[in-house]
């Protein structure tokens, strides 16, 4: 928190960063500055902001934590991974939440892995195709495999469903699936663009809804959100499950990160410690995340 001697410097920038069309969120941020403030360590209140993928889990932990520690108030806000990273860098919140890896420019933040989350390919429950490998998945999502027949399924045009540009889930998927692995000479590749006619939805839930209703659809969502109406596809011969994800066999795993600027202040450190404790990790596992060791 030493870097916070000039909170006003980051204020304007961060406000510019937030979607102006979400006044409620802005108001919360404004309150977050006005009330706990970075410099007022005596106020026993911390704010988490960022990824909407992490948000529900963080809310759960905050609720549970406040049951046992009445002296500390934990506020959780959404806004998206990028917004969360910006917010914690400019001292608007105490802990940022991110569902994507930090870029080189963002390495100044201290990161704590909260849990692992797999991104799984989902298809309609009636679709007989069991799975595919990473290369096939890339061809499907970039629009070069267009019919389920090519994957051993029925003669149906594939409806590709993806997430909107900027989403953490999409960024992780792009990195793990859409980017070809480096060649033998170590040459790195750019991610392949998604098919232009892919449907775009703005949440895991919306993607799942479409796949649940359309026999020809394929999408990708968080492993914890798979339900009986959709089927998680086998990827590279590995059936996604808690076991395969934890052992590292399943290929598309991302980390949910909690971020602080420099060393965490005492209140934040307490919460971080709780989040990594056995009961907290047990709660997350119950919600479908893969706990850290």
């Amino acid at each position: 928190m030493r870097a916070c001697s000039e909170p006003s410097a980051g204020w304007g920038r961060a406000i510019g960063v937030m979607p102006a069309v979400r006044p409620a969120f802005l108001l919360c941020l404004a309150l977050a500055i006005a009330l706990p403030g970075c410099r007022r360590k005596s106020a026993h209140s911390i704010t988490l902001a960022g990824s909407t993928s992490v948000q529900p889990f963080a809310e759960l932990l905050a609720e549970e934590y406040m049951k046992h520690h009445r002296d500390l108030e934990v506020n959780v806000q959404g806004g998206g991974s990028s917004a969360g990273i910006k917010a914690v860098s400019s001292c608007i919140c105490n802990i940022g939440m991110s569902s994507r890896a930090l870029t080189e420019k963002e390495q100044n933040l201290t990161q704590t892995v909260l849990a692992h989350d797999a991104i799984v390919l989902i298809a309609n429950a009636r679709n007989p195709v069991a799975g595919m490998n990473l290369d096939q998945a890339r061809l499907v999502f970039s629009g070069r495999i267009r019919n389920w027949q090519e994957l051993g399924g029925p003669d149906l045009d594939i409806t590709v469903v993806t997430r909107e540009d900027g989403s953490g889930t999409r960024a992780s998927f792009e990195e793990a699936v859409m980017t070809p692995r480096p060649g033998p000479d170590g040459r790195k590749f750019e991610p392949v663009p998604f098919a232009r006619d892919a449907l775009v939805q703005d949440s895991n839930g919306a993607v799942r809804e479409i796949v649940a209703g359309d026999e020809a659809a394929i999408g990708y969502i968080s492993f914890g959100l798979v339900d009986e109406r959709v089927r998680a596809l086998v990827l590279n011969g590995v059936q996604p499950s808690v076991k395969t994800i934890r052992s590292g066999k399943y290929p598309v795993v991302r980390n949910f990160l909690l971020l602080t600027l420099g060393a965490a202040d005492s209140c934040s450190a307490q919460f971080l410690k709780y989040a990594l404790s056995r009961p907290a990790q047990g709660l997350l596992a119950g919600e479908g995340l893969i706990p850290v060791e």
Partner: protein
Amino acid sequence: MMRASKRSGPPAELKTASPLAESKTASPLAESKTASPLAESKTASPLAEKLVEKGLLLVAFSSVAMLFVIAFFIFREGVPLVARVGVWKFISSVDWSPSKGRFGVLPMIVGSLEVTILAVLFGGALGLACSMFLAEFAPKWSVRILKPLIELLAGIPSVVYGFIGVVVLVPWIRSVFGGPGFSVLASAIILGIMILPTVIAISLDAFNAVPSLYKEGSLALGATRWQTLYRVMVPAARSGLIAGLILGMGRAVGETMAVIMVAGNALTMPTSLLQPVRTLTSNIALEMGYASGDHQAALFATGMVLFVIIAILNTMALLAVRKRR
């Protein structure tokens, strides 16, 4: 404000101390009391009159000021990016991947226009037919039932339209016509229904505003009701009908929630009615959650394009109405 407090103030103050039941029985008394200040206010001081006048003026201007504030912020955020990318490139490139620095909104402009025009064709035809019926053929009692029901359509939240679209319309299109179902067609039908109340209300007013002399003259010359309607009434009400269509168009261009839910939001140039499409408004709402930096500026720039399109539509509506006078 001042007058209101004069009228209701004193009786209300008297009541506050007394329990509720008592205040009910006392209400006739309160009403009789209110009558006298009302009468007084007819001879109210010119000062109060001035204050009310100026107050209303201030409120009226503040709503206009709001428009300028909104426009200012949209343009302040959006202009630098468009200037950097280049206006022409921004509106003519088909490649939109803001996180990779590629900003082209052409598919969305085309998508917005395509969906809107189809919605106006669909909703306009239905709406004009409906208002013709209500204005000329419907018996009085049915107008009394139908008109409020149509106005009720306007009160249904757009998310409900979208939900019905997703649950009913999209699967229907998918099974009947094929394709993903999320499509230009689905959006146009939903939007067409959503603009009905606007189109009907304004065109009905336009028909009613035609002097009855025209109609009576035509009927007296031996024209049938239908001949009178399309030879006399429609031309006489033309500018009002056009205004209704254009306002409906404005609503269709601006609608977001329902479209996001049924359009599929893909970034293609829509070449078929069954293809998914992304409109300008959907683009903003869809991506704002995670946007930052240039990406966010690009969304504001999308808003600029929308602003210009809507300004053009409104100007057209104004001109159409003015022609009538």
